[in-house]
């Protein structure tokens, strides 16, 4: 459902290449982990999928749609099909957990009935029923990430993009987040996650793409963390 065709990204200074001729595809319902050192090009790869950054060569397809040919006005429609989770959570600081999740649905033009039904469900799925009226600064890192995941899944996207979702979390919170992502994947959503946490990879036991210097150096269907 995601197809990278010979994608390169070279930054303006002309020397540093974040991605070099990357070609791979992701099938529906897969759980793909992308590993690599800092600067290996993991985050750039994810930015290509959500059209936050443009490649300097090659194409990225979402099903049959060339992602970087989408006109700016239509971009918000495209992004609603993808749930995103980030290392720094990216919650709206002036909105409660409930409002943060509801915002994604409001932006999507869902009805009030759908919102009042689905938001508590999504927050229940990430075990946060008791903190729905708390603001982000009143939540722990793990709780914030769970709000972010609830927001990412509430519109029932086809795919979840998670950029270092456990990067800022302690081992227990990391374990919880990984379990939640696995649960979401088992419910039928494709998950693409970057990480450099060995324990997480070994725990998941699914496909692992290893990157180095902007290139894919390994692609194992039931991988371990090897670097």
């Amino acid at each position: 459902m995601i197809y990278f065709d010979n994608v390169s990204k070279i930054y303006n200074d002309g020397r540093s290449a974040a991605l070099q001729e990357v070609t791979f595809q992701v099938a529906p319902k897969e759980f793909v982990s992308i590993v690599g050192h800092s600067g290996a090009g993991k985050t750039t790869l994810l930015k290509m999928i959500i059209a936050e950054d443009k490649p300097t060569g090659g194409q990225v397809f979402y099903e049959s749609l060339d992602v970087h040919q989408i006109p700016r006005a239509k971009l918000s429609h495209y992004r609603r099909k993808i749930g995103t989770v980030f290392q720094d959570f990216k919650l709206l600081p002036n909105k409660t957990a409930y409002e943060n999740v509801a915002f994604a649905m409001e932006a999507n033009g869902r009805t009030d009935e759908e919102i009042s039904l689905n938001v508590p469900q999504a927050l229940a799925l990430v075990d946060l029923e008791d903190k729905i009226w708390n603001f982000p600064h009143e939540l722990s890192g793990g709780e914030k990430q769970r709000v972010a995941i609830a927001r990412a899944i509430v519109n029932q996207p086809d795919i979840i993009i998670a950029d270092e979702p456990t990067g800022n979390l302690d081992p227990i919170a990391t374990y919880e987040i990984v379990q939640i992502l696995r649960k979401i994947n088992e419910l039928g959503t494709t998950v693409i996650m970057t990480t450099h946490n060995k324990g997480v990879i070994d725990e998941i036991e699914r496909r692992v793409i290893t990157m180095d210097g902007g290139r894919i150096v390994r692609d194992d269907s039931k991988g371990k963390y090897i670097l």
Partner: protein
Amino acid sequence: MITTAIRRIIRSGFIGFWRNAYVSLASIFTLTVALFVIGSTMFIDQLLTTSMTTLQAKVDINVYFVPEAPQEEIDRLYSAVKAMPEVEFVHYTSREDALTDYRSENQNNEIAMQALESLDDNPLGANLAIQATDPIHYEKISKFFEEQKGNESPQTPVIDKVSYLDNKDAIDTLSSIINAIEKASFVVMSVLLIAAVLITFNTIRLAIYTAREEISIMRLVGASNMFIRGPFMLQGTMYGLLAGLLAVISFYPIMLWLGPRTEEFFEFNLLTYYLENIFYIFFVLAGIGIVLGLVSSILAVARYLRT
């Protein structure tokens, strides 16, 4: 669908306004200062225009006739000047009226009264007070009387003197002073106005700068540009409206103090003007405030909606 979006934008705008109370307050106060400057320009302009008009209304030409002037000559000049299109108003004072006026003006001045008693006849001549539709016409009216005077035979004079030339210098000086004040105040106010607009724009831009992270998150979640921009536009509008209200209110104590003083000096009571036009002033200031707030918000958010 559209109404739901609008309802959500409005609710989100109000919540944002309230939860960022400190930032909102700072923007409102800055905008209030800007509107206060704009309001002051309006008042000063009104004051100068009105005092100019009052001053011009005071200007007139007085034509004094010699006491022996024949009544038919006076009547002829009276109707001639009255027929001129440039003339707004002519007031005729007969010899008897002039004497009565003189008496009442000088009733406490014994020397003047004694001097008057010692004369057999009424020493005062009749006169005409003429007001033109526009001050520029005085030159012409005065010339008309000068010509009439020149045509008289020296044995039977009619016109004693025409006062225009005496007043002219004083009038010209006053007009040029008022013009100079108007020009100077225009320059000063323009500078203040530009400063006020820039400060407002910058404050709102800073307020939105603090929200740039939020804007980028909203984009990632898939919010459309209008859905992101809407609440900020509403907040900008609210800043303008509230600042307009605050500016109008803050003028009240100043007018209360200034009113009687302007009454004394300019014969124009600013307090009365303020109270009579309070809704007009509010609409103008709030209108400018809303435009300023709205445009600043749109421009500030636009920076983060690009790419």
